[in-house]
């Protein structure tokens, strides 16, 4: 059985939330004409995700016996997914800095279509130029980030650990990104998102939750084929943590999201806050269990 790997839990979850947010912003940014991405939300998103990303990277250092030498972790890109992960996350961070710079640019000019009487063609051109750069930045960051997340998942794809040695880790990490990314964006954009945007994000979150649940069911059933996998499974099913995680991360969000989408009159924001909070907890627990339940193939002789 594994241990409570707090640094790793924080690093992975926070990092995934951060990238999730950027990803969502990018997505929202595609639609230029009708409901385009609000600048303020863009800024908020960029700032929050940046902070989370920074925190994540810091947390990852705490896992090391010798954080002061962490820079060396870049030296084995050849075969080590850990090296690749670090590289990609650093690149993501660079891309984010570009985004940050972008967001500073925004402030200088007033945004197009903000109801001002006369708009010169120059302004429009500049504005478009800008939104172009913006979505380029968002896209770049998202792609690098997603690659980073995939490689952090790949770290755990170890032949020694049947519970990990499959597509599971990649899917789990990406789903966390999708779910929490969307929910956090909803929170950040509580009063900046247009109804349509909210709706799509909510649907997306719901989708992620359902997929996550289904995948977990398949994953669980697959585990039991190997001895160690079975041990992991038994550990999970017998652990109260797992059931809390199930309620917080799957069932509660499922119900709430459905109800939010069903009746438009209820106060969305509060509920969205709750869902995000619960799902967040659920994901953290889930990640903790991911490490706790890992059982490696090992020597079973008597000591």
């Amino acid at each position, binding site marked *: 059985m594994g241990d409570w790997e707090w640094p790793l839990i924080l690093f992975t979850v926070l990092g995934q939330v951060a990238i999730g947010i950027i990803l969502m912003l990018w997505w929202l940014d595609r639609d230029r004409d009708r409901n385009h991405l609000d600048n303020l939300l863009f800024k908020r998103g960029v700032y929050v995700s940046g902070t989370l990303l920074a925190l994540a990277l810091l947390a990852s250092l705490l896992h090391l016996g010798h954080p002061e030498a962490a820079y*060396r972790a870049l*030296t084995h890109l050849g075969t*080590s997914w*850990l090296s690749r992960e670090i590289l990609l996350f650093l690149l993501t961070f660079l891309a984010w800095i570009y985004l940050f710079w972008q967001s500073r640019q925004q402030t200088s000019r007033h945004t197009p279509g903000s109801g001002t009487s006369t708009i010169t063609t120059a302004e429009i051109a500049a504005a478009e130029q800008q939104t172009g750069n913006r979505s380029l930045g968002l896209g770049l960051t998202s792609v690098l980030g997603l690659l980073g997340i995939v490689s952090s998942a790949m770290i755990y794809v170890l*032949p020694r650990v049947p519970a990990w040695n499959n597509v599971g880790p990649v899917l789990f990490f990406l789903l966390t990104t999708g779910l929490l990314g969307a929910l956090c964006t909803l929170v950040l954009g509580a009063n900046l998102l247009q109804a349509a945007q909210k709706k799509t994000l909510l649907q997306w979150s719901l989708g992620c939750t359902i997929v996550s649940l289904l995948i977990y069911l398949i994953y669980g059933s697959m585990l039991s084929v190997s001895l160690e996998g079975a041990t992991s499974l038994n550990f999970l099913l017998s652990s109260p943590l797992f059931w809390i995680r199930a309620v917080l991360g799957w069932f509660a969000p499922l119900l709430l999201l459905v109800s939010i989408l069903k009746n438009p009159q209820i106060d969305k924001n509060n509920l969205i806050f709750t869902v995000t909070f619960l799902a967040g907890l659920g994901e953290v627990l889930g990640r903790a269990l991911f490490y706790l339940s890992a059982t490696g*193939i090992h*020597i079973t*002789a*008597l*000591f």
Partner: protein
Amino acid sequence: MSKQLGFLHNSEKCVGCRGCEMACKNEYQIDATPQWRKVFQLREEDFSLPTRMFFSMACNHCAHPECLRVCPVEAYTKRDDGIVVHDPNRCIGCRLCTMACPYDRPQFNPVKKKVEKCNLCYQRIDKGEKPACVAACILGALELVEINDSLDQKTGVLKTLPGLPSPKITTPSIRFIGPKQGKQIRRD
């Protein structure tokens, strides 16, 4: 790679005296916690008769070392003679290798906050000496050998023993002579 050095452990001869275990600690004055080499007792259930049978295992200097693959700092290198050497000066203590090795032989030293493991006494080998554990084995149950087909074709040479992870994971450079049981007159 020109060749692959490894261990041949003879469980028929080994009485589990643990001399190798301590000789290793004595040679390098290893801290209390990490055990580069360890003697394991095979499970009673794996034999027709209750018995005390053993094998001794350090790093297996695998042909496909997982530790080397996952290590982000290239602390692991594989020499031409197949010895997998861990360089503590590069190690940053990320412990990924300890997760990846099915034999748990890279061991985290909680005090130095780095991983350590058996380097097959390469400095002794380079001087033409035997590894400390091999030199210390009173019963000649532990040998330094070249892992190759001619060894594997020898009768009685096994690639694994009950209770060991499948060699498929890392193709460890260790071979065994299986334990042999005599006759027992029991009272139960």
